[in-house]
């Protein structure tokens, strides 16, 4: 087990151009599952490859287990990596694939079989050992890649979008398995993905990256509920946070907090609200100060468990601004195109960002009319 740290890590591919990774400082914790999340081109894979030693940093340092490893080749960094394509050796059998790192690290021959069997049974691929990679399904290949990674008990796992080649159904189960697996072996893991669901579900902490810079590091709850800037606010959450420009501020609120007034309880005793929430499908208990807004629905998407309403505000200062609301399908109410409704946002749910820097700022009083 080891801690991975980067200090002012920068990678510039072409001189004069903006860096793919700029001045990244971060530190994992012992046995942590850290997720790099960002859109494509955000530098997350480059960052991972620099930690692995497959890419030479332009400046800055990579530390593994407390010592600088910049000058070490990948094989001396005590890491294991799973590639997006799995990168299994096509001409070798599953057994030969898994044993390859052991041979390369000159581990005693007598231990090979025992270690391969251990890794294979951990991932449930014991019966596939004689097959070639091309005879395996996507899910099986992914397990072989993982087995090859764990077989020599590395101190750090680096995973580069290992689930992106699986179909949606398999991805969900593989996600859960991978998470369980990481908890069991307790190896510090860095996981790269562009999928926010994966990041939120698996990460102990999430590093949100954009254009080569770290926008926020925090637990899934922190990055979702307390986004550090408008990029994080809109990158996480689907549909993304509603943003309204107001002078030198940007006001943001989540679609699931932009709700019909009738579905939010008025003040009352807690018991009363609780019973109302059951019978009347109230979605939010007493929320304190509320911001009433008129909402014209333009069209809606029915997604089974929930409805996404797209439309615009009507009247007041933000008349005409596009906003989105997300309400569970179970709750009553007809929200057809071109109907106008009374909606509200709890004032406590508003996030404020500076217009120029796009960074989060203190809550302020806002003129809504």
């Amino acid at each position: 087990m080891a801690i991975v740290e980067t200090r002012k890590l920068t990678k510039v591919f072409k001189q004069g151009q903006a860096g793919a990774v700029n001045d990244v400082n971060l530190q994992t914790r012992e046995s942590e599952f850290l997720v790099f999340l960002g859109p494509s081109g955000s530098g997350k894979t480059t960052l991972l490859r620099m930690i692995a030693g497959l890419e030479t940093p332009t400046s800055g340092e990579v530390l593994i287990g407390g010592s600088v490893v910049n000058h070490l080749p990948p094989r001396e960094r005590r890491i294991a990596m799973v590639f997006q394509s799995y990168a299994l050796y096509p001409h070798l059998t599953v057994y030969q694939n898994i044993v390859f790192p052991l041979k390369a690290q000159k581990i005693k021959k007598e231990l090979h079989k025992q270690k391969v069997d251990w890794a294979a049974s951990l991932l449930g691929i014991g019966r596939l050992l004689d097959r070639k990679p091309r005879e395996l399904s996507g899910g099986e290949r992914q397990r072989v890649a993982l087995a090859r990674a764990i077989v020599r008990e590395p101190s750090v796992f680096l995973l580069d979008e290992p689930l992106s080649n699986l179909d949606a159904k398999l991805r969900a189960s593989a996600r859960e398995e991978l998470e369980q697996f990481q908890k069991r072996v307790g190896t510090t893991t860095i996981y790269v993905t562009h999928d926010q669901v994966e990041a939120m579900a698996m990460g102990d902490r999430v590093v949100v990256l954009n254009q080569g810079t770290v926008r926020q590091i925090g637990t899934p709850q922190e990055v979702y509920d307390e986004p550090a800037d408008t990029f994080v606010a809109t990158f996480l959450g689907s549909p993304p946070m509603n943003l309204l420009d107001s002078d030198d501020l940007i006001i943001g609120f989540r679609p699931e907090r932009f709700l019909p007034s009738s579905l939010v309880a008025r003040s009352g005793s807690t018991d009363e609200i609780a019973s109302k929430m059951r019978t009347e499908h109230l979605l939010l208990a007493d929320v304190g100060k509320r911001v009433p807004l008129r909402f014209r629905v333009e069209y809606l998407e029915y997604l089974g468990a929930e409805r996404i309403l797209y439309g615009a505000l009507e009247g007041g200062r933000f008349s005409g601004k596009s906003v989105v609301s997300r309400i569970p399908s179970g709750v009553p109410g007809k929200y057809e195109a071109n109907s106008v409704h009374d909606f509200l946002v709890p004032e406590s749910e508003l996030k404020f960002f500076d217009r120029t820097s796009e960074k989060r700022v203190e809550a302020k009083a806002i003129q809504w009319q």
Partner: protein
Amino acid sequence: MTNRKLGVLMFSPAIIYVLAVVGVPFVLAFIYAVGDVKIASVGYHYVGLANFRSVLQSPTFRRSLYDSIVFTIGTQIVVLVGSTILALALKDRFTGRGFIRFLILLPWVAPVSLGTIGWKWILDSIYSVINWVLIHLHFVKPFDTPMWLGDPTLAMLSVIGVESWRLLPFSTVILLAGLTAIPRDIPEAAAVDGAGFWRTLFRITIPMILPIVSVAILFGVIFVFTDMTVVYILTRGGPYDTTQVLPSLAFFTGILGSDLAEGAAISIFLVPILVAVAYFMLRVASRSEVG
């Protein structure tokens, strides 16, 4: 005109060409090999396998068969090692890669005879630049220089060297194509797994390009085994037939020696070997398609 007729019409030049240039001489070779044809002879008498018998008894023929095999295998080894090194070196980007690739391709595009005549001067007994350099570096004495084309062993090494020089670009291009087809992830995975350069080369890279390597080898074998240009220009098979190969022997016997029948018999000895090589080539090709 129907489509069918048009098709036949369009195809016929190619078929006529192949028949005239390959088919007719091939059949003629078999007919001559069992006859008594000489240049300027008017009749034809069937003599059965007499030509083959006399060819097999000739020490020159046995020597040529042996030389052909040494020449072919020697060239393949040099080319294989050389083109693997070149392909590995030219795979990654660096400044001037395009220019170096161009230089390496030159021997393939230059006319064979011109290139080989250049080599004849380089290896000349009096004017050899190689010897001039060796003398000035004090590796050899001025009046005791190596006879590149005059000493049996050196002559064989010389023709192998020049033939390799010709074949190297072709083989390098094929191997480069094979190397580029390996996804970048695979050698990277090997690097992370702990493999160094040699382990990656021998356990991962070479096994992965093996189907393509075997295609390069088989093409190379056919090319070298049937080629006589280099031998003809550099040594004419000498000294004492120590660099004589089957194609050049067939030419000297059949055309220059005017014994068409025996020349044909010699060249027919190439057929079974080439058929075997072609068979392996097709097998390898179809196997790598499946894989």
